[in-house]
Every structure is written in C-alpha cells, then in structure tokens.
C-alpha cells in the first residue's frame, strides 16, 4: 500500500484547504459569488509571477527584473495597439519584447556567468529606465475592447478567462519541469551545477531557457494585467516582485536551488490570495494584513526547516541501525 506522505506540498495543501474552510465559516461574504470571482481575477497575475520566479529560483538564481520585464512587454503591447496594429500582432510583439528581456538576462547569466542577483538588479534598473524614457513616466492606455476581455472577460460566462490561462500555464510548467529533459536538467543545475556539467548537461543552455521561460510568463502576466487595468505604466505590478519570491519560497521552493514544485507555488499563491481577500472582507487594516502574511511566511519556513532536520535525524538513525 502506498503511504500518504506529508511532503511540504501536502502540508501546504492542507493549510490551504483549512484556510478556505475557516474563512468560509468566519468571514461573512467569503463564499459569495462576487468574492469568489474576485479572487479568481486577482490570482492569475500574481500566480504567473510566482511561477516565473519559482522556475528561476529552482536553478539557484533570482529574477529581480521580472516585473519590469512585464511592464516593458506591456508598453510594447500598448504602443502597438494604440498605433492600430491588430491585437494578435500587439500581443506577439509584447511577448517578443519580454523574451528579449529574458534573453538579455539569460545571456549575461548563462554565457558570461555573472551572478543572477546582480544581473537582474542591473536589468531591472535598465528596463525601468527604458520604460521611463519611452513613456516619460506617463501611463499609456488605448487598448481595444476585445483586448480588455482577456483580463476582465468570463469564459462561458462563468469562469474568468485569466484564471484558465493561469491554470493552463501552471500545468504546462509542471509538465515541462517534470517530463522534459530540460525540466529535469533545471533541477540538476539547481542542486549541483558542477555535477550536472560533468554529467553532460549544457548548463548555460538550460539556464538561458530558464530565463527565457520566466520572461515568457512575465509577458503573459503583463498581458493579463494590462488588459485588466486597461493601462500600462512604469510601475505596473511592481508590488508583485517580492511577493512572488515570498510565494515561491512559501510554496517549498529551495532558495539555494534544486527543489521546487508548481503545485506548492500554486498552494502558496492561493493561501496569500485567501488571506488577503478574507482579511480585507473582515475590514482588517492593510498593514495588519501585511504583518499577518509575514508571520505566516516565517512560520511555514520554520516548520519546513524543522521538518527537514527531523527527517535528516531519522535517516541518520536508520543508517546507524542498518
């Protein structure tokens, strides 16, 4: 019989379910259709950033330029669509710009070998500067009504389209990480780059694709955000930068790299979302909401740490007895 193990992800899943039940009982209006659709609208953009961040963190890196990559892609879409290009061209253009940003990160990190935190810090400032010089700090709007449906529309009149896109990307990411050669190499590079290099993995190629993929997700997040907010500005989604790191880490991703699962990140994003919406519904002041999120993050990290230690001890004992 297969034993149900309490992995990090399963614990998180239980916490997420528990939280949902708790919120449903104690917060009036939490189960209302309005609030549920609200949460489904709010989750995708954050979730996409968290996934993008997770993939990078699994390689032991970090992508600080992620929100500005998204903003730059958004600017490209806005410029293309306000100049009368069809929506599909504008979206492709935005994704191309996003990928270009990712390529830049990937090139400097993978081919030249500068540490990711420095590179992406640099590109973050660079992209910000680029956007500022293009937009002069103003916001650009002028998207077509069809475009705004991506972020605001319902699929079959019931489920927000954006959450379907998000779930699709989440499943895709999971499949890519677990079933493809590239995905397995990502974990190998993350846990031990030297070993992976000597096992015949082309580290720099793997890393390059990681940054391209993260930029692609950022660009998709950007499409959802720009269509939801009908505007793009230099600080589009800037508050998601550290939140996405927090969500990835809360989701069990090892900050030194080598481990991280899509499902964990998904649970973490859901937990953040439920806490934020639930506490807001209760009328808890925003700063307190932020404090509570911080406390939960730290608590879960400590629990994870203790659990890892305990497992290590158990294995040691097993080894001794054997």
């Amino acid at each position, binding site marked *: 019989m297969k034993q149900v193990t309490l992995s990090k992800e399963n614990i998180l899943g239980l916490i997420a379910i528990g939280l949902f039940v708790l919120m449903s009982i104690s917060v009036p209006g939490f189960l209302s259709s309005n609030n549920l659709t609200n949460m489904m609208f709010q989750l995708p953009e954050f979730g996409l950033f968290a996934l993008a961040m997770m993939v990078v963190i699994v390689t032991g890196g970090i992508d600080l330029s992620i929100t500005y990559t998204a903003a730059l892609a958004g600017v490209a879409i806005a410029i293309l669509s306000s100049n009368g290009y069809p929506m599909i061209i504008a979206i492709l253009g935005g994704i191309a710009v996003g990928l270009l940003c990712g390529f830049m990160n990937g090139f400097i990190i993978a081919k030249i070998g500068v540490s990711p935190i420095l590179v992406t810090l640099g590109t973050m400032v660079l992209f910000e500067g680029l956007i500022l010089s293009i937009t002069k700090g103003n916001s650009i709007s002028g998207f077509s009504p069809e475009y705004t449906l991506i972020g605001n529309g*319902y699929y079959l009149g019931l489920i927000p389209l954006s959450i379907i896109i998000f779930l699709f990307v989440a499943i895709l990411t999971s499949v890519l990480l677990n079933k493809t050669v590239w995905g397995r190499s990502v974990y190998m590079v993350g846990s031990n780059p030297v070993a992976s290099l000597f096992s015949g993995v082309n580290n720099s190629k793997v890393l390059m694709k990681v940054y391209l993929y993260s930029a*692609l997700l950022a660009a998709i997040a950007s499409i959802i955000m720009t269509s939801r907010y009908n505007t793009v500005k230099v600080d589009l989604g800037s508050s998601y930068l550290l939140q996405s790191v927090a969500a990835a880490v809360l989701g069990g991703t090892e900050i030194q790299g080598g481990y991280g699962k899509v499902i964990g990140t998904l649970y973490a994003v859901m937990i953040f979302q439920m806490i934020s919406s639930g506490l807001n519904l209760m009328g808890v002041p925003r700063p307190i909401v932020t404090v509570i999120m911080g406390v939960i993050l730290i608590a879960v990290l400590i629990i994870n740490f203790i659990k890892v230690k305990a497992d290590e001890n158990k294995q040691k004992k097993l080894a001794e007895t054997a």
Partner: protein
Amino acid sequence: MKKIAGLFVALLLVFGLLAGCVSQQGAGGNSNSSKDGKDEAGGGDGKIKIAVVPKLIGIPYFNASEKGAIQAGKDLGVEVIYTGPTEADAAQQVKVIEDLISQDVDVIAVAPNDAAALSPVLQKAKDKGIIVMDWDTPADQSLVELSVHQIDDEAYGRHIAKSLVEQMGTEEGEIAILTGGLAAANLNSWIDAAKKELEENYPGIKLVTDKIATDEKQQVAYQKTLDLIKSYPNLKGIMAFSTPAPLGAAQAIQEKGLQDKIAVVGTALPKDSAPFLEDGSLDVAILWEPDKLGYLTVALAKDLVDGKKPENGQNIDGVGEVEVWEDGKTVIMGPPTDFTKDNAKDYDF
C-alpha cells in the same frame, strides 16, 4: 531538438488558447452583466457604508485625511472604511476596490494612483449600484458622480509661483522646479499653472531647467537640490511640488547655509516643515488641510446616498463654504493655506 520542439508546442498552445477564447468572450460578457443585475438587488443593511480609498496608506498626508474621514463618520453617523494600498501601485489599488465591492459598500471615494487603471474596476462598482466618486486626484470623469478637489489647480499653481517671487524679493533671477513624479497629473497641472503665472506676470524670472523628478522622496529631492546649487550658482528660488520635495530642498539649503540666497516654496505639511520654516531654509509651505478634505469627502458622500447634490457656496460643517463648478460634479474645497514659521506649530499633521 525534442526540448525545442516541446517549448515550441507549448508556446503554440498558449497562443491557441488566447486566440480561441477571445471570440467566445462576446457571449460570456453578456451573460455576466445579467448576473450583475441580480446581485444589485441584494446587499444593503441599515447603516450607510462609505469607503474612502487613498493613493496609499501610512504616509502623514493620508493619515491626516483618514482622521478627518473617520471624524466625519462619527459626526454624521455613517460607517467609514478607510483603506488603501500599502504602496502607490495601481494594481494593488484595484484589488482594494474589488474587495470593497464584495463588502457591499454604498459609496467608493477613491484617490487614483492611475486614473486609467481604475476605470474597469470603477465601472464594475457602478454596475453593482455603488456610487463612485473621486477625491484628492481626479478619476475617469465619466464614471464618477462627484469629484472632490482640495483646490482649484490653476489658482493653486499661480499662488505658489506668486509666493515664490514674493519670497525672492525680486522679479528677476533664475529658478528651478522640483516635482514628485513626471507622471503625476495633479502636480503637472500645478506646475503648468505656475509656469503660466511666471510667463504672464514675471518675464524676468528664468527657469534654468525642465522640472526635475524626485520620486516622491525627500532624500532624492535633497540630492537633486545639491546638484542644482552646484550647477546654477545664481539660482535664486526653488518651487518644490509633492510633499517630500520641499523638505529635501530645504534640507540642502539648510546644510549649505543658503537661507538668505535661495528662496524655497513648496507643497509640504506644516508639521514636517516646521524645523525648516524656523530658520528660513523653507520660506512658505503652501497646502490645504488634508483632514478637512477627508471630512468633506465623507460628508458629500453621505449627501449623495441621501440623494442630495452639492451646491455652489454650500456650507459644510467643519469645512466651510465649498465651490461647485458648473458641471455640478467638481467640488473645490477652498483656497490653499499658507504655513509659515508663525502658524506651522498650530497644526498636528
């Protein structure tokens, strides 16, 4: 090769999904709006709920307006929810408003970080039967019932320019302008008005450079002012817009001991600027009283729920007479207040 193929297929699927769904949206959108109509019937319990959303929470200016808004709630017997994003980020603000819609509030009064970004969510609020208004900074005018302005932008900008010339003691010389951010609509309209005043009435005043952005940070304003002093030794005056900018400028003036040489006039809160006003490094801080603005917003919101529109010259308890423009939408709280070293200590914001 397989990997690349996989990635390619993945990309293709993403596009496929995007393209496939858009066509289905027409039907989806319609059925949703009918759902909205149903929701509207529900909700609504005894006490009037007024939500006031600032650009961000936790800065002195919006703390002061919170005080006023809460006070108004107590005085008028309405429930006031004062909540906003913790960063001046449009995306966060949209979420705050979405959550407020779920709470079945009667009025949402918002000071937008980015007016265009809020349009879809304000439309959503309106569709649910919530009265939408803006305060402090205008939102999309086609969506709001009322637009509460602290000040007449044009008059305010001109007043600041005039005050600067007064403080310089001469109608000739070089000046510079500091601003919070290049995109801030209200700051830009004040600056334009100030420039107009200078052009029309004080041709001897020369602007040495374009307006300088200080990122709403005192530290940046301080640094930029030091640069200005170095680059333009004949500088006689600085106009600083956004609340941290005058403080940073005054800090630089104070440090260099240039109180008598360079006049600084700006939009700052009296409590913050008191130490700089004391030794003349900041000559005048010109602003309105943000607590009154919060109070006025709530008072007018309650009137709207009761079906009353504001009238020109109407006297609001605790605020004074307000000016209402001909569109019946734009409300001006009143003339600005000059904070000088004599009166700055009387205010606690």
